[in-house]
């Protein structure tokens, strides 16, 4: 499965305007619900995790990996994509403000490792990240992801 296959139209919101980080998480959750990846309870679980542990999901400049743990609210492993026209503060120690959020739901600890490996390659490439932030449609997001993962496949023989 290609990384881009995880981002059907219903999973992607580009260039949104939100008042605060909670609304950004709501959008990431809505993208999971719309694909049938999670129930709405998972969105509440993501927000509760942030309330409990703080904004530790803001793990790279301007980027948050919104997620909670495997739960009955997770129907299958999947992701969602949210880019923001105006970045919002999460109150993170580093990497604020955030204008790109990937929502993640996983059924267990291991089944999503392959897709996480592909995602890691995308996240560590600042040029690809800039393209993703500028993308203005789900199709554009998928095209960038396809280009990013096929390029790195050729140049990294150790990927698994």
């Amino acid at each position: 499965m290609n990384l881009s296959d995880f981002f059907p139209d219903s999973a992607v919101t580009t260039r949104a305007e939100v008042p605060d980080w909670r609304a950004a998480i709501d959008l990431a959750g809505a993208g999971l619900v719309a694909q049938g990846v999670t129930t709405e309870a998972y969105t509440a679980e993501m927000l509760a995790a942030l309330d409990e542990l703080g904004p530790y999901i803001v793990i790279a400049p301007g980027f948050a990996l919104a997620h909670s743990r495997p739960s009955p609210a997770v129907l299958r492993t999947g992701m969602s994509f949210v880019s923001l026209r105006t970045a919002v503060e999460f109150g993170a120690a580093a990497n604020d403000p955030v204008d790109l959020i990937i929502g993640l739901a996983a059924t267990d600890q291991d089944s999503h490792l392959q897709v996480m490996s592909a995602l890691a390659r995308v996240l560590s490439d600042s040029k690809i990240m800039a393209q993703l932030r500028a993308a203005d449609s789900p199709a554009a997001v998928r095209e960038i992801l396809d280009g990013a993962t096929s390029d790195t496949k050729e140049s990294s023989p150790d990927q698994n």
Partner: protein
Amino acid sequence: MRIVVVCGMGIGTSILLKMTAEKALRAMDIDGDVEAADIGTARGAARTANIVLTSQELVEELGDVPARVIVIENFTDVNEVSEKLKDAIDS
């Protein structure tokens, strides 16, 4: 060398940081075992680890552990993780 990466849930940010740390170890040609843990199991896992990698937000949650705790800002930056690991190993 045993490294534990800690995130809140054990499925997302710690997995990414584990991948970055493994790349960093390979790049430095250091033999190491990297394990991902959520904050609930991290204290136990950290007991047998040399080094714990986590974010500023989770350091307080983690509390006192015998391992060396390193705060990583950018979980996808192999250079940052390499430099901080190198400093910890050298000192």
